[in-house]
Every structure is written in C-alpha cells, then in structure tokens.
C-alpha cells in the first residue's frame, strides 16, 4: 500500500462493543500520521444491542465518507453474525479479520478489550507508525485503563508479527 492510495477500513459489531471507539482511534492515529481522514457511523438502536458500523477512510484526498460496496480493504468485525451479514463490503482480495474475534475473546484482561485487540491486529497491516497509534490510544483511554489497553494492543501486534 502506498501513501497516495485511499485505505478503507470497515468496522462492525453491536452496541456497547467499542466499535465506534476503535474507529475513532484509527481515525486519530491516521490524522497524526498526516493523512486526510473521513469517518462515518451507522447505528440504529445501538443502546439495545442493535448493529453498529463505522466507515473509516484515509489517504491523500478522500471524497466519500462511505466506503463504496465492494471497496473495503479490511473488515474488522466484533461479531460473527455481523460479518456474515455485511461481508459484501470487502473488495476482492480485501482482508477479513473476523477470525481474530475468538482470540480476542480470551484475553486475560477480559473480553471488553476486544476492540483494542482487533486494533492491534489491524495496526500491523497499516502504514501508521507505532507512536501515533500510542498517542491515539492515550487520547481515547486517558482515564480508562490505559495501561491494560496498551498491553492488549502490544500483545496483538506481537502475535501478528510472530504468526
């Protein structure tokens, strides 16, 4: 992936899983890296376990805030049912990270860190430097278990590098 092309990350899951936080952190990290970033959220009845999606696009110049159908480079799903329902968003050759849900569900820190775990997995695939990721994580989790979040993030990165 070179810096001039737009990278499209599609996040999906259900209310309360941290889908929107994850997209926010990637958006922040991409901004710090100097990209043009656009983010768009779709949620209905998220308070009652309804579905949540976030489209995150970054590159030199991004026009549409929504990823065109069949245009996502990455599908980052927090819920297998949602991946099944929405996987058409992925472009041919795009990567589906749904397989990592199970790994993230058994973290010693607890299942609520799934969003940070998946971000760690994603981060190894994106042209964004580690310090920008860390700054973005810090901004999001300032008073909310920052240490644990960074530990989970680094663990995911390490696992990806070793695999």
């Amino acid at each position: 992936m070179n810096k001039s092309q737009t990278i499209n990350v599609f996040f999906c899951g259900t209310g309360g899983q941290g889908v929107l936080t994850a997209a926010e952190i990637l958006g922040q990290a991409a901004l710090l890296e100097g990209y043009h970033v656009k983010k768009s959220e779709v949620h209905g009845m998220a308070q009652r376990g309804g579905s949540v999606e976030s489209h995150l696009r970054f590159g030199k110049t991004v026009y549409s805030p929504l990823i065109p159908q069949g245009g996502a480079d990455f599908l980052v799903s927090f819920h297998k049912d949602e991946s099944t329902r929405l996987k058409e968003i992925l472009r041919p050759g795009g990567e589906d990270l749904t397989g990592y849900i199970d790994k993230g569900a058994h973290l010693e820190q607890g299942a609520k860190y799934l969003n940070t775990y998946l971000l760690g997995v994603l981060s190894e695939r994106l042209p964004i430097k580690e310090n920008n990721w860390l700054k973005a994580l810090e901004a999001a989790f300032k008073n909310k278990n920052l240490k644990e979040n960074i530990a989970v993030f680094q663990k995911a990165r390490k696992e990806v590098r070793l695999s």
Partner: protein
Amino acid sequence: MVPKNAFQKHIELEKRVLKLKAYSERSTLNKIEINDKKIGFITSGVSYLYAREMYPQASFLKLGMTFPFPSELAREFAKKVKKIFVIEELEPYMEEQLLLAGIKFKAKDPSFRVGELRPEDIPDIVKGKVRKYVPQTSRKAVMCPGCPHRSVFSVLKKLRLTVTGDIGCYTLGALAPMQALHTCLCMGSGVTFFEGFKKVLGRDVVGVIGDSTFVHSGVTGLINLAYNQTKGLIIILDNSTTAMTGNQPHPAVGITIKGEPTKKLILEDLCRVCGADNVDVIGAYDIKALEELVKSRVNADALSVIIVRTPCRLIERTKLKPPVLEETKCKKCYLCLGLDCPALRKDENGLIKINGKFCVGCNLCVNSCPAQALRKNE
C-alpha cells in the same frame, strides 16, 4: 405579527428571495468545475462527495446554496457539458428546478428517491438503472433481561388487549414473538391513538407510553381524553429515565441534565389534574396484581391511568438468583420463549437453557411456564 404587518412583510420577504436568487447566481458557494466535458453532475453536499468518488474526472456544478436555485449558472454549465445528471437524495428538488428553467438532463429512476444514497449508486443512476440496494435485515434489538416493560406486555398479551403504543424501548414490544404493541407513529400517539381506537373498538384497548414521552407530549393527549369524556385505560411505563436514547433524565426524574437535583414533576398528581378519575401506581414484577388491576380498569366507566413504576435495568443493576429449571418437567411448549428474554434459549436438542450471566432473576419466565418446570430460586 398582526395581519396588516404580515401582508407588508410578506411582500418584502418575496423581494428578499429575488435578491437571494441573484446572490446564489454569483456566490462562490456555487461553483463550476470543468474536467471531462462528456459528463457533468449537478449536485450538492454529501452527494457531491459520492459522485466525485466514483467519477473523479467528470465536470461538476457543485451547489453550496440550492435555494434559491441558480438557474442561470446551471444554464452556463449545461452549455459546457454534453450530458447532465442530477445527484440528490430523496425528492427531486434540483431536477424540478432544471425542468422549470428548461435545462435538459437525465432524470434518475424514482427508486433513487427513497432512502440515503451510497457511492455505488452513482454509476447506476448514470446508467439509468433501477436501484439494487435494499436494506438488509439487521440484528433484532431486544429488551434487556428483567426489563419491566416485558412484564407489562406479558400481561397485556395474556389479556388479548389492543395496545396503542409510543416511541421508546417499549416499541420493541411490537416485534415477534411478543407482538403485544400494535401501533406506533410519533411521540404522544400512544395516548391520542388510544382515543380513536377506543371510539371505534369500544372495549379491550389500552394506550401505553413511557414516562419521558408522557412528559414530552403524552400529557396533552390525556387532557383531551378527559375533555372528550373518553373512558378507558392509559398505562405509563415509568422506568424513571429516557432509556432508548441513553438514560437521560427528564422532569419527572427530579435531576437536571447536568446531574443536579431539581424540582420533580409528580406524574400521579399531573394525571389527576388532567382529569384522570383513577390513578394507581404499581410495580412491574407483581404480575398477578398488575393483571387484576388492568382487568378492573380497562373497560370500566372511568378514565384511568396506571403508572407502572420500576426502574430501567440500566439503572437498577442488582441481580437475584436465576430460576431453577427442572428439565424433566419441561413439556417443550416454549411458552417461556414467547417472552423474548435474551437470557432464555432453546439449545440444539430443544432443551430450554438459562444463561446465568444474563439472567437477573426477575422470575417472569417462572410465571409463564404452565408445567412448573421453572421455579423461583429462594
């Protein structure tokens, strides 16, 4: 404004619209971008971004000010490009402006007048196709385990009442398998629809509305019920919050949006002064008492309000022990599943299972089981 002034002011307003039209024609908010002259888009807002995404080389008339419509600018643009497409969401406003100005363009298929556009729709509009996208059914939203609304609906369903509903978490009572709420239009309609339904059906109707929705716009409907001498029952589902949108307080909670204590609106007093003959307050979990009360009020010759007051599960988080399930007694009738509690499910072998993590021990399912296979855990 008094009528004499309104007449004069309206003329001035019309003059102002003409001035704005002149401004719209020359404003930098509206701009022409000429690239490939074979294809031109007239568009604005997010639709411009979608069109630009899919046709980066095309020419554009991008409007930042669509009213009054800059028809002369559009005419100038039309002279420069071969074919014109209008990309706008919903009603064909810009298309109509072009028709009025006699500017030729390719109209989009009416199927694109519904719902939001997506970037992938733009090529289909250009090719004159019908819209492919139909919204996929998404995850079903459901009331929380132990939700007080579920108790109330289980009673209304048992009594086979027609239920006029309103907007809030309790609107979910309309979905299968519950299907205990039968109308929903706008805030306050749980009360006003009740009045109409009661007139037509005569009996066995009840209106339900949440506490915050009642304060917002149910109270006017209740005043009308009293004024029009309508008899019957309104139930206020008082979970002491605005749950659906994320637990905001409201005047009947007695806490401001900043979390500070304030004057508390007393719903029972309010209902009485509106003209309700009977006002009862009852908890949601005593199903038998609730059923008796509803039965005594629903077809009575009086205007009654029952306030079912039990806090939302997002406020009241204490849990009791899950019920005990005796598998051998279970008749597999699945009546319990009719409650749509997320803590109850049927496993691969058709056996009922309780998810101990989700269950809050409200014992509603115990009440629903005709075979006593579910028992209160004391």
